[in-house]
């Protein structure tokens, strides 16, 4: 939770307020995805990481 709050502060500091709702949606979706996958493996996507 600390990290997520820290990330919100980070977005605030960067004045990227418009990313807040997106991040919340992602977070909810992410929880579902993580729960569905169990374990995650890094795919071959160069730019993401």
């Amino acid at each position: 939770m600390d990290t997520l709050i820290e990330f919100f502060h980070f977005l605030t500091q960067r004045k990227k307020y418009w990313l807040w709702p997106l991040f919340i949606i992602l977070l909810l979706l992410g929880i579902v995805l993580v729960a569905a996958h169990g374990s995650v493996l890094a795919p071959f996507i160069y730019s993401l990481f």
Partner: protein
Amino acid sequence: MGYILGISAYYHDSAACLLKDAEIIAAAQEERFSRIKNDESFPTEAIKFCLKFANISLAEVDHVVFYEKPFLKFERLLETYVHFAPRGLKSFLKAMPIWLKDKLFIKKNIAKALHCIDPNWEKSRTILFTDHHHAHAASAFYPSPFDEAVVLTIDGVGEWATTTVSIGNMAQLTLKKEINFPNSLGLLYSAFTYYLGFEVNSDEYKVMGLASYGTPVYKQLIYDHLIDVKADGSFLLNMDYFDYCTGLKMTHKKFDKLFGHPARAKGDELLPFHKDMASSIQKVTEEIMIKLTQSLYREFAIDNLCIAGGVALNCIINSAIRQHSGFKQIWVQPAAGDAGGALGAAYSVYYTHLSGLRNVDLQTDAMKQSLLGPSYTQKEVIAALHVYNLNYEKVAHDVYYRKIAAYLADGKVIAYFKGRTEFGPRALGSRSILADPRNAEMKAILNAKIKFRESFRPFAPAILAEFADLYFSKGSKNRYMLFTENYLGNADKVPDTVSIPGAVHVDGTARVQAVNKSHHPDFHQLITAFYNLTGCPAVINTSLNVMNEPMASGPEDAIRCFLNTEIDILAIEGLLIDKKRLAFEELSLPGYYQ
């Protein structure tokens, strides 16, 4: 001010570096310990080595720094998906769980991993984070022999930046401008690497080697459709042709259509088309880099240039910059890729965070010949040889190099292991395979029987610095194999008897290492012995490994490489093992010729 531990990890080629104030104490890549090429996992073993070398515990380290900012990277990721939506859903669904489960929590993961290394290291301690490209810039400028320089970093992508320009002045490093994702010269080159059937972020050097076999017939097509280059060398990519923002591959089907061929599958035959494509992207990248650096030289009127980032490992481009940019002196970080980010991050803490004072030696850099990894005593080597039940000959120091030289002159291939391992991708005479460069067939022998790699791949010479300018244009300037030089072997001043065709690429150039007596005394002594015997002041020097394996680090790595290839002699810390003299039982050991 104490010890600073720099870490790069979780993306590509993880590494650790330990500074004591401004002095590099140790640095190593995790792959050398884990034996996984370009290992991206947390560099636990590399950190343990650095601490052991300095004889300190982790709790005694004053500052820990990570080489990039994960939040900034995640921000880029989110914005990229928004920008390209609804495209990229598949990629998004694959990436998000990884970020939300793991990568967003890098700070906690680092703290946890450090606590595992040393339970006395409190998880609540501060971990510092530096910008990815700032780490590259710091790794390029602070160890350089310059008090003032333009600092160029260029790679695939960090957080947002793909190219940055900074000005270094003593301890100050000031960012002047940058080009951001998705416009990336590194990713453009990687897209071609992918298209040519090689591995992205790993095999770009193969494209560079292949380029010499083709002609740049697609150069104009690239300029017309893929990239818009401005007068100052800045650039914009046409993202219609690339898929890396949202897809699971580097190039879009439009890319295939443009060049009239599908992407080559790994292992497929290399056609003249592929060679021409390699040549074309090499030429385009080279021209852009020249334009960019010429513009920087005009703009800042500073004579020195420092470079880091993955693109800086393209030694042909480095040489072109040196020839055409206008800069009088160029210094390239030998660990220019992400591993070097660990070093740069640590330097950044010392000079930027702690305001350390910088004393510059204008005569030489602070990299200690990039020999910053672990070394092993003869006793440790003997213990490893016993594990493999190998007989060895212990040779007196004054005879050792003469014997190795005699083997080389006799056409034998030597696995040479001495002192501390190299930090960075190049073997510089500590973990090397050596051979006689006078034999033009040696390239084919090494590629087929020892390295098990593509036949087009060249080999490089290590040459006594005092002879380097005689054999190569500006040869003596190259300590780290980061520039290619024109071979002057056909000139009158080099008699044919000592020409070195085995170490010259098909285009008449070579990635030279000039071996200086004061910087690398043992390796210098070895080549001198070969010179005294043959009149040839150079040897072929390639890394001690086989294809797709990291360079050897410990004695067991070297022994395995020796046993699993057709290397004739293992010369390891004053000991010689001749494969011909090994008993049948020894050759029947598991792993031999498998």
